[in-house]
């Protein structure tokens, strides 16, 4: 028995901030002080507050240390672990108030959160199956296999109101029901997990896999029992090495414990899981493309129907859910459908994990009940926008989603509300933009992504997105005409209606929603040739302030186009017809004499 436990986050965020070094320094220091029998060190999954990593929590006190450096370790060991005195200067400042140190659950970041899918992240050691079992792990699988019929499992999931967390929002129970019933005499069925989290700015699935890999394995086995499948595949991005490693460890441990394999819990039910790695193709997040990729082909989508429930992986009935969806399943089985359905809004039950990123103070991972407003997420949990800048918009759903403008900041977030304002839930990336972000440039950014990731199979997506990108490029370079805005809209609708798969059908969403919410900004780019956020280089004009220029010639020497003229110690001038707007002069000027506007 240890008298103290130290939890260190080993998620990708904290890992990148140096948690490995902190961890080895800690173990060394603990050994040096002879505390190895009294203090246990646990490497956990993500706590959510990635911006303040590496994060370390000491129990039983629950002291939450943030932004720990290796050099802080001796002090923490000698003061806190040896003498029992909390090192206040290293505590997460939100936990320190005038009345003393308060619990983490009272801080603005955690207060409104409700952790269901992330229940074990930052709590257990993801590389130790015993800790998962200690936290009720594999109990749901046991209950399902020994007490429930497959139909009862499906009914429970259906009654819970759980909808697919990958973005589409299809009812999970119905998906399972279809896979169970459509082809009753299928000789083989499959359960797949979509862990190809490709939306830029989304990392909730990665955090679940890193922090609680067993929950996905358990849920897949439950799904296998429900639909009558014996084999599962997890398709995961190769960009997530830590998640892949922990998943491998978890699968091997589950096999050793007989929780995967033959005759699980003596029920006669067989189930096993294998991992397949992605290789960097965004389109493989689309369900048909994902299965084609597992089969060992180019990950090109195919038309639906037939839907995977009828004809999926290797032509067999298949259920495919995403990581976060699975992470909810064991809790639903254990606590019941009513418990889950009591959270959220009328049509969107439960909680949703969001990856907060962009211009926000508390970047990281949050889980809130469906129906929480964007204002609560951004200003209360997220701690607002850095440097006191103004909120401009939030992008949800990545390159398939749209933006939520300040006007809609009080709308409760759920599947249907987001669609009604021209965005979508997507997988849960939530990128906040402030006044310094240009909405034409952002639309162009997302489109550049889809142009690059379009698989090329169908023309509307392959050629359409490219033409759309060129139109935006025309606008940001100062050559836009008013009629281009209408052309953009028409082309967007065409691509939406005619593309083969979800990638193309949703690719125009960012453009449409930004054009809808920020029309003035687009008009300004076209008519006035101005970018108020000063992002679009092609629209910026450079000039030299006469009273600040001392004639040092540094700018003229730096100019690659020979656009700056002037003699030594005399005022310099920029010839705008020659200027290529590279900004090299601004960087060289030591006197702040060159401005762009």
């Amino acid at each position: 028995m240890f008298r103290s436990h130290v939890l260190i986050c080993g998620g990708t965020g904290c890992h990148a901030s140096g948690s490995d070094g902190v961890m080895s320094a800690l173990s060394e220091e603990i050994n040096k002080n002879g505390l190895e029998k009294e203090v246990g060190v646990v490497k956990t999954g993500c706590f959510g507050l990635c911006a303040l990593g590496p994060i370390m929590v000491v129990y039983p006190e629950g002291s939450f240390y943030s932004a720990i450096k290796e050099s802080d370790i001796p002090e923490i060991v000698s003061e806190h672990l040896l003498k029992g005195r909390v090192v206040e200067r290293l505590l997460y400042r939100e936990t320190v108030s005038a009345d003393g140190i308060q619990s983490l659950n009272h801080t603005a970041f955690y207060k409104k959160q409700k952790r269901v899918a992330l229940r074990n992240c930052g709590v257990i050691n993801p590389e130790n199956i015993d800790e998962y079992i200690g936290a009720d792990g594999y109990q749901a699988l046991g209950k399902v296999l020994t007490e429930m019929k497959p139909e009862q499992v499906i009914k429970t999931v259906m009654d819970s109101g759980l909808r697919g967390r990958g973005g589409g929002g299809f009812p999970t129970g119905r998906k399972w029901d279809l896979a169970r019933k459509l082809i009753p005499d299928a000789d083989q069925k499959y359960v797949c997990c979509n862990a190809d989290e490709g939306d830029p700015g989304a990392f909730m699935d990665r955090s679940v896999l890193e922090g609680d890999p067993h929950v996905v394995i358990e849920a897949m086995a439950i799904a296998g029992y429900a639909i009558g499948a014996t084999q599962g595949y997890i398709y995961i991005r190769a960009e997530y090495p830590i998640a892949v490693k922990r998943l491998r460890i978890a699968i091997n441990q589950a096999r050793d414990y007989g929780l995967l394999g033959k005759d699980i819990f003596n029920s006669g039910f067989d189930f096993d899981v294998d991992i397949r790695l992605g290789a960097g193709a965004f389109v493989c997040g689309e369900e048909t493309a994902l299965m084609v990729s597992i089969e060992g082909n180019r990950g090109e989508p195919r038309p639906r129907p037939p839907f995977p429930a009828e004809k999926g992986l290797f032509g067999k009935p298949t259920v495919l859910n995403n990581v976060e969806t699975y992470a909810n399943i064991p809790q639903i089985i254990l606590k019941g459908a009513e418990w889950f359905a009591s959270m959220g809004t009328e049509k969107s039950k439960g909680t949703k994990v969001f990856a907060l990123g962009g211009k926000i103070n508390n970047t990281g991972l949050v889980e809130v009940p469906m129906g929480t407003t964007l204002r609560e997420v951004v200003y209360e949990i997220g701690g607002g926008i850095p440097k006191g800048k103004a909120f401009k918009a939030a992008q949800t759903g990545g390159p398939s989603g749209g933006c939520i403008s300040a006007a809609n900041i009080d709308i409760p977030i759920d599947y249907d509300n987001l669609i009604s304002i021209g965005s979508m839930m997507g997988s849960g990336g939530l990128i906040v933009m402030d006044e310094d972000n240009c909405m034409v440039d952002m639309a162009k950014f997302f489109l550049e992504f889809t142009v690059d990731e379009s698989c090329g199979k169908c023309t509307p997506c392959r050629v359409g997105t490219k033409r759309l990108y060129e139109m935006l490029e025309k606008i940001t370079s100062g050559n836009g005409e008013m009629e281009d805005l209408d052309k953009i809209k028409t082309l967007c609708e065409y691509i939406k209606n005619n593309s083969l798969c979800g990638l193309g059908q949703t690719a125009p969403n960012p453009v449409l929603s930004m054009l809808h919410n920020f029309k003035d900004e687009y008009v300004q780019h076209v008519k006035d040739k101005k970018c108020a956020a000063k992002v679009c280089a092609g629209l910026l004009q450079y000039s030299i302030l006469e009273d600040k220029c001392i004639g040092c010639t540094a700018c003229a020497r730096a100019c690659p186009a020979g656009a700056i003229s002037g003699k030594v110690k005399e005022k310099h001038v920029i010839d705008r017809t020659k200027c290529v707007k590279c900004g090299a002069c601004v960087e060289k000027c030591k006197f702040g004499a060159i401005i762009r506007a």
Partner: protein
Amino acid sequence: MALKKCAVPFAGTAEQEKALYAVIDEYKSVQGALMPVLQGAQEIYGYLPIEVQTVIAEEMGVPLEKVYGIVTFYSQFALNPKGKYKVAVCMGTACYVRGAGDILKKLKDSLGIDPGGITPDGKFSLEDCRCIGACGLAPVIMINEDVYGKLTGDEIDGILAKY
């Protein structure tokens, strides 16, 4: 676009070849084995030259054009060798919003190469990559396995000097 044809002559060792055959044997009987085999081969050689693709096609009993089709479809398969240190700039949304474009420009200037390129001494290669999921630390770059976050651009030369 990365070059589809390899610019450097193939120089595989017998050891690498043995490892390749071991990977092929491991997966030969598995359904949908081509991807894991290609991933294994890339781990062995660092890239997938046409010589390696040919061996895989023959051993796995699939046409070479299918192998080539897969290799060119997925961005993680490389037809050219990478530098000793692979510098990757995350171009995910969170990083982009926080100035990843400037970081990439700075790296291009410091290394003197464009994304997809490799320095003449073979030490560094540069690429822009998809979201690596370290959005809390945006903007970030990766050099091999090391992640550097919360960059402003001024640190770049110092970071490169470490390698």
